[in-house]
């Protein structure tokens, strides 16, 4: 029995090893064929490292000869692939990292040849764009760790976004707006929890109802009240950028990491806190136990229902912060259906990140990066439709879900109601 088990595992490992190796070699060849052959020999690519209006020390821009750099990147990719095929590198993270890094960098070298491209600006906007995705993903992580699926994050964020801007505009205080968003998010999640725990409503169905209701309710309120009232209800201003003294002076890193608004910092803080809570505290152990094997947890005296209520509501509050980001965290006003599917991408990020906070945040960054890259490409007029780049995160998620490239494993009891 054990023998056949290890056989299966080793064959799966072998398959994953070979497919990774082939992927890297193919990527290397693709870099050479797609970008190398169509780059002018003498072309230089300029990466801007300074952000206008930032406090960071000014550094000279990075000017790279495009063609040699592309050849180097292609070589790195092929060499890593060959090494992987021959010997095998254990770390999936490194492989994915090398694959994306070489391909994306070569792509940028090619796309921005003879032009200037603001690298710092793009990294900064990646982080900002990743924020709502990350908050949605964290909401997913915390509730699915107790085996409650919540795909109503989109609806929760939409409602919180509206609550935040209205509360902040009426009171003139952005913090009141943030608190309103958090409370509303918590309440909606509590309703979801109540339906799925008390009435054992199908978790996906309940979430879908929240999405439909959220879209309808926010659009209703928006067109019935907010449009007529104009700025009286829908003009809150946004959280100011807080530059962290000292650290924000560092070139490149300063503007990217240390000149952001409250919600961006809060998100990073939440990731760290949630990681510590989940893996290093009794609460985290209980949470994970309830998600993996509720019966065993119950037998050992953990209150399964209470844990689920608490986590789902906490998740809703985090999604509430995510909603607040859309209005008082970025544009200062509410528009109908402004979340535009970020809640669903958050779910993808959660799966991509293997149901843990740091993984979820990292994958949100990748999605945010793809998002901001797409905007930059439109400016650079690269002859590739930006829509295809926007598809990449979705396609990646589907590939990850097939389990061919590193399998995502959900909590064992995910989606199942618990009966004593």
């Amino acid at each position, binding site marked *: 029995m054990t023998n056949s088990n290890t056989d299966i595992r080793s064959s799966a490992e072998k398959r994953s090893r070979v497919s990774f190796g082939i992927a890297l070699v193919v990527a290397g060849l693709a870099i050479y064929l797609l970008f190398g052959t169509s780059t002018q020999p003498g072309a230089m690519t300029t990466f801007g490292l300074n952000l206008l209006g930032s406090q960071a020390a000014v550094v000279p821009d990075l000017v790279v000869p495009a063609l040699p750099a592309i050849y180097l990147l292609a070589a790195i990719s092929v060499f890593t692939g060959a090494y992987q095929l021959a010997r095998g590198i254990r770390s999936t993270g490194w492989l994915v990292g090398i694959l994306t890094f070489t391909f994306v960098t070569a792509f940028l070298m090619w796309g921005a040849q003879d032009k200037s491209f603001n690298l710092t600006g793009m990294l900064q906007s990646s982080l900002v764009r990743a924020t709502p995705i990350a908050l949605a993903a964290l909401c997913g992580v915390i509730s699915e760790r107790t085996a409650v699926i919540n795909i109503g994050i989109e609806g929760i964020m939409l409602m919180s976004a509206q609550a935040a801007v209205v509360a902040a505009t009426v009171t003139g205080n952005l913090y009141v707006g943030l608190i309103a968003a958090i409370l509303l998010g918590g309440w909606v999640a509590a309703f979801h929890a109540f339906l799925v725990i008390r009435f054992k409503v199908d*978790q996906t*169905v309940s979430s*879908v109802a929240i999405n439909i209701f959220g879209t309808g309710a926010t659009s209703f309120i928006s067109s019935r009240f907010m449009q007529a009232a104009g700025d009286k209800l829908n003009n809150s201003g946004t959280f100011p950028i807080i530059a962290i003294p000292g650290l924000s002076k560092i070139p490149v890193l300063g503007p990217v990491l240390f000149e952001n608004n409250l919600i961006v910092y809060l998100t990073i803080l939440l990731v760290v806190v949630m990681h510590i809570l989940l893996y290093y505290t009794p609460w985290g152990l209980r949470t994970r136990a309830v998600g993996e094997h509720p019966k065993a947890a119950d037998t050992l005296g953990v209150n399964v229902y209470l844990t689920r209520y608490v986590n789902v509501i906490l998740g809703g509050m985090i999604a509430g912060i995510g909603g607040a980001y859309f209005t008082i965290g970025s544009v200062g006003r509410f528009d109908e259906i402004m979340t535009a599917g970020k809640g669903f991408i958050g*779910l993808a990020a959660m799966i991509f990140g293997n149901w843990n906070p740091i993984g979820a945040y990292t994958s949100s960054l990748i999605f945010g990066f793809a998002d901001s890259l797409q905007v930059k490409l439109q400016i650079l007029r690269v002859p590739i439709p930006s*829509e295809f780049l926007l598809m990449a995160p979705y396609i990646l998620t589907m590939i990850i879900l097939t*389990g*061919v490239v590193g399998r995502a494993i959900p909590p064992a009891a*995910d989606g199942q109601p618990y009966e004593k």
Partner: protein
Amino acid sequence: MSNTTAPNTKEKKRSGIWSELLIPALAVLSGLILGAIVILVSGENPLVAYGALFEGSFGNPLDLVEGLQVYFATGETKELLRAIYPFTESLVTATPYLFAGLSVALGFRCGLFNIGAEGQFFIGALCSAFVGYSIKGLPMIVHLPLAILAGALGGAVWGMIPGYLKARFGAHEVVNTIMMNWIAFRLSDWLLNGPMKSSGFRPVTPNVMETAELPRFFPDPLRFNLGFFLALLAAYLLYWFLFKTTLGFEVRSVGANPDAAKYAGMNIVRNFVLVMFLAGGLAGLAGTAQVLGVDHWVGQGFSAGYGFDAIALALLGKSHPFGVVLSALLFGFLRSGATDMQSMARIPIDIISIIQGMVIVFIAAPDIIRWLYRIREVKKEEAVLTRGWGS
């Protein structure tokens, strides 16, 4: 033995149908009552609003009487057509709901949650529009079926991909269909701004040829067309497939208990792929009916909300094809009437989504309805809809 019990079971069956209908009816009623409260809170009169809703969806009975009088007196049809316009328009609105609802219902029957009806709808619409406008010079008898087939096939392939991924790799269809929706939206953004763009400024496709349009029964502006009857036919065929064929029995068995079905020698993989193929095809037909019957072109945001509404009405119709027909008609009348309510009673059309959201909650949690209306519980096993992300 069977002879003596026959009348008894028949009676039981009849009362069963009534109790099946009771909960959905009460759920809709409760949704409407909550909607009335929302209207009241927003400072309008619910009676006026619902009056406008009724008139917008069924038409004004007085107009109809007058139209008939004019018709019989003079043979003039203008008044009569104006009177039946709201009613036919509701049926036009119900048509895509019907197809899309059947798509989701079929998925539920096999234990699959098809959230991707929206994307399949869009792809189906784009495929049928492409065949509709790009092929010229065919007679209608060839062109129209070809365009319909293209739409169905486009949706079917879009639906089959998550079905295959589920069957082969165990990748959960809920996530994959959501991802496929977004891929469909991005793809259509590109197509409508590039390869499929008409010569104007707006990102829309050219109009389909007249030979690819679903025939309309009345002169303009009435848009009532063959699509509605095709949808009814699809509902009947789906009923026949699910309840009268061996394959349909397999589909339902897999939905009820995949482990037992597997043990009985049924091919789970084949069933998943087949069901998602057919479900995608039905959703594709929803888009096709909308393009070929109503709009004649496709623009951005074409499929707005159909996918989620389809989930609502599949649940409301208890995933039974005939139940879906009833709930699609209900949604068609609500949506179509709400447009009038918006202009006459200043109630935004989004009130319908609020009502829908509440109806889903009530349908999914019948205990709430039973508690609200003090109905005794009938012990019955509830259909399992989804099973987590994993298997």
